[in-house]
C-alpha cells in the first residue's frame, strides 16, 4: 500500500513535524543518509516558505512509483498571496524577506522533479520528487 501523510503548517512546530514525517518515509523506502538529508531539507524549505509567506498550508508526503522506480513526493499547498513572477523566485539569491533566496532554487537541485504552480491571490502549489536509485 502506498502511504500518504499530511502535516498542517501553521507554526514552526509544523515544519519540524513535516521534516520528521519526510525523513521517516524516506528511510522506510530505503534512501541513503545523503538523500534523506536532501529530502528533509527540501521539506524544511517548502514548509518554511508556507509559514513565512502564506501563514498556513499543508505539506503532503507520499510514496510514488512508476514502471521501474520508487520515490518520495513532497507537495506543498497554500492559499496564500501567490507568486507574481515564478521565473524570478527560481533564481538564486532572489528574496523578498531578507533571506538568502536559496530555498526554491535549492529545492529544485535537492530533488529530481520539480513543478511550481502559483496564482497571485490564490495560492501556491509546489511538488517535488526524489527517485530512489
Amino acid at each position, binding site marked *: 500500500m502506498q502511504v500518504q501523510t499530511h502535516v498542517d503548517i501553521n507554526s514552526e512546530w509544523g515544519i519540524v513535524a513535516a521534516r520528521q514525517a519526510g525523513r521517516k518515509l524516506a528511510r522506510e523506502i530505503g534512501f541513503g543518509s545523503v538523500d534523506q*538529508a*536532501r529530502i528533509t*531539507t527540501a521539506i524544511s524549505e517548502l514548509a518554511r516558505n508556507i509559514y513565512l509567506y502564506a501563514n498556513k498550508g499543508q505539506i503532503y508526503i507520499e510514496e510514488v512509483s512508476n514502471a521501474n522506480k520508487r520515490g518520495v513526493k513532497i507537495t506543498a499547498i497554500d492559499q496564500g498571496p501567490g507568486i507574481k513572477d515564478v521565473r524570478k523566485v527560481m533564481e538564486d539569491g532572489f528574496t523578498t524577506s531578507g533571506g*538568502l533566496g*536559496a530555498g526554491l532554487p*535549492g529545492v529544485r537541485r*535537492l530533488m529530481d522533479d520539480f513543478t511550481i504552480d502559483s496564482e497571485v491571490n490564490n495560492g501556491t502549489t509546489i511538488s517535488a520528487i526524489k527517485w530512489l536509485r
Partner: protein
Amino acid sequence: MNANISHIIFKHKESIIDQWLEEIPKFRTEDSLQNITDAMYENTNREFVDKLLSTVKNQTNDHADLVPFTERLIQLGWPLNYITRGLQEFRKITVATLSKSETDYNDSIELLQEIENWIDEIVNLLVNEYSGSWENTVFLQKMALKELSAPLIPVVDKISVMPLIGTIDTERAKHIMENLLTGVIEHRAEVVLIDITGVPVVDTMVAHHIIQASEAVRLVGAKCILVGIRPEIAQTIVNLGINLNKFPTKSTLKKGIETALEMTKRQIVEMEG
C-alpha cells in the same frame, strides 16, 4: 451553600460516600492510577470525597480549603480527567440520593441548582489549579531548555566553543546570537567554534543565521570556525547553493581546536618523560 440544603446533604453523607467509593473504580483506567497500590488508591479516594463533603459547610462558594489537597493530587500525578469524572459521578449520586429520600425536595429546582453550583465551583477550582501547574511546568521546562540551548563554553584561554544540539527555530537562533556576542566579550574569546554536529537539518534559514552570527562575531573582534559538518549536510549545503567559503570550516571539533590554536599562535606540545 444554603444551610438547609447543606444540612440535608450532610444527613446522607455516609450513603453518598459509600455509593461513590463503589462507583469510582470504573474510572481507574490510566497508568498513573493503576501503578499505585490499592490501599493508596482507596485512601486517597476516601480523603477526596471527605474533603468534598466538608465544603458543604462553607457559607460561600469559596473552597480555597481544597487547594492544598489538590496540590497533593497533582504531585501524586492523578489525572485531571479522573478527578472531573469523579466529580460528575459525585453529583449524579448526590442528586439521586436526595431525590429518592427527601420527598419534599423531590423536584426542587433550588436543590438541583445549589448542587450544580457547588460542584461547578469545585470543578473550576481544580481545573484552575491543574492548568496553573501545567503552565508552570511548561515555563520551567522552557527556561531549562533555553539554558541548554546555546551554551558558550570557554575551553581554553581565547578559545570558546558553542555546541548546538537539536532543531534551530527563530527563537533559538536569536538566543544563539545573543549568547555568542555576550560570551565572546565576557570570555575575551578570539576564536569561537560553532559545532553543528547535533543539528539535524541545516536549511537556508539555519545557514543564514550562522552566517549572520559569524559576521556579528567578527564585528566584535573575534573569528568563527564552523565545525562538525557531517558529510550529508555538506552535500545539502552545496545543493542549496550556499557559499560558506567566507568563513573557515573544519570537519571535526578536534581539527577546529587545532586551527584555533594556530590562529592564536599557540600549539599543544607533548611533554617528555
